[in-house]
């Protein structure tokens, strides 16, 4: 009896270890299959690597926000628009992060669940305002973001279908506040021939 009892405990612990390991592997497999599904469904968009940025040049607030989002790898500046800068970073597993902000600060970060550089034509960072009195109606407040190399211009589509466009440079785009029409219905990515690569209703 004692011999059986002494063997039963380590076997039980080993079994528990295997179960935990299998559960962890299952989690990794699900995440991996999600990434693969993303890869299979998306076109092959690319984005330039930009210029390396030293973490010491970023504000403490920016460093904290980047780290909290998972962007712990080398940071690259893709471009600037006015006083805004656009960045590309990486996570510990190599997946990309994109960020934007004023100067050395960071206002918004997106760390993707994708192994691709850009799973879509745009990583749009546009913002809206919602008032309780007419929620959930959104009022477009700012339009900016990161664009893939294949995107030549970004447009704001008005209710009548007309487009207000801005060229992409440094893989980034940004509209001045006064250029955003009140009847905006979508943000579109256009290639050099004017073909719509992505349309996001807002």
């Amino acid at each position, binding site marked *: 009896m004692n011999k059986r009892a002494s063997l039963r405990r*380590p076997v039980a612990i080993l079994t528990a270890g295997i179960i935990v390991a299998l559960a962890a592997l299952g989690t990794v497999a699900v995440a991996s299959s999600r990434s693969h599904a993303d890869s299979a469904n998306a076109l092959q968009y690319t984005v330039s690597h930009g210029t390396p940025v030293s973490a010491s040049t970023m504000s403490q607030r920016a460093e904290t926000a980047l780290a909290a989002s998972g962007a712990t790898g080398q940071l690259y500046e893709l471009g600037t628009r006015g006083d805004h800068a656009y960045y590309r970073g990486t996570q510990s597993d190599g997946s990309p992060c994109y960020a934007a902000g004023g100067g050395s600060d960071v206002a918004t970060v997106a760390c993707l*669940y994708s192994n691709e550089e850009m799973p*879509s034509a745009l990583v749009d960072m546009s913002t809206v305002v919602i008032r309780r009195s007419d929620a959930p109606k959104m009022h477009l407040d700012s339009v900016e973001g990161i664009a893939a190399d294949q995107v030549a211009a970004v447009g704001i589509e008005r209710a009548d279908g007309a487009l207000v466009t801005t060229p992409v440079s440094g893989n980034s785009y940004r509209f001045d506040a006064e250029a955003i029409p009140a009847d905006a219905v979508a943000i579109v990515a256009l290639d050099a021939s004017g073909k719509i690569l992505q349309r*996001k209703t*807002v």
Partner: protein
Amino acid sequence: MVTMSQMKRARGRYTRSRRRVCVVVVAAVVLATVVSSAKAITGNYWGYNNLSVTNPPAGTCMTNPSYPWPAGFACSGWGNWDQSWVDWTSGSGKFSFGYLCQSDGVFHGRVLNGAGGDVPAFYTAVYYAYCPGHYNKAMVGHDSGTYNYLQAGKN
């Protein structure tokens, strides 16, 4: 000649050794899982759960006791939050996340739309770009489409 007590001691050492190996294996697996998702998943006020036109129900987020927000909106309590975040894992609806600013009582946020090409990710919004002041609520709200499965929080 090996005595019974020597055999028992040897078996005890063997058992403890296997137990230590198991503990080390389990600890390594748990550590690897934590490190692989090294994001600040703390301070959540919503989810993981579906965000939709009916979930959460109306009044889940309150500006104050007299001003309930409609269904589909969730928020944290008031605080000096540095970051508002969402861990969006699936769904194709349109929603936004950001801050309910105390200064104007208005929700300022980033709009995401799965049907419009935005992809699941861990998104963070830093307060200074959304609200004039630091004392706000972190907030997430459904706009249209079916649903999005996500967790939302603040740091």
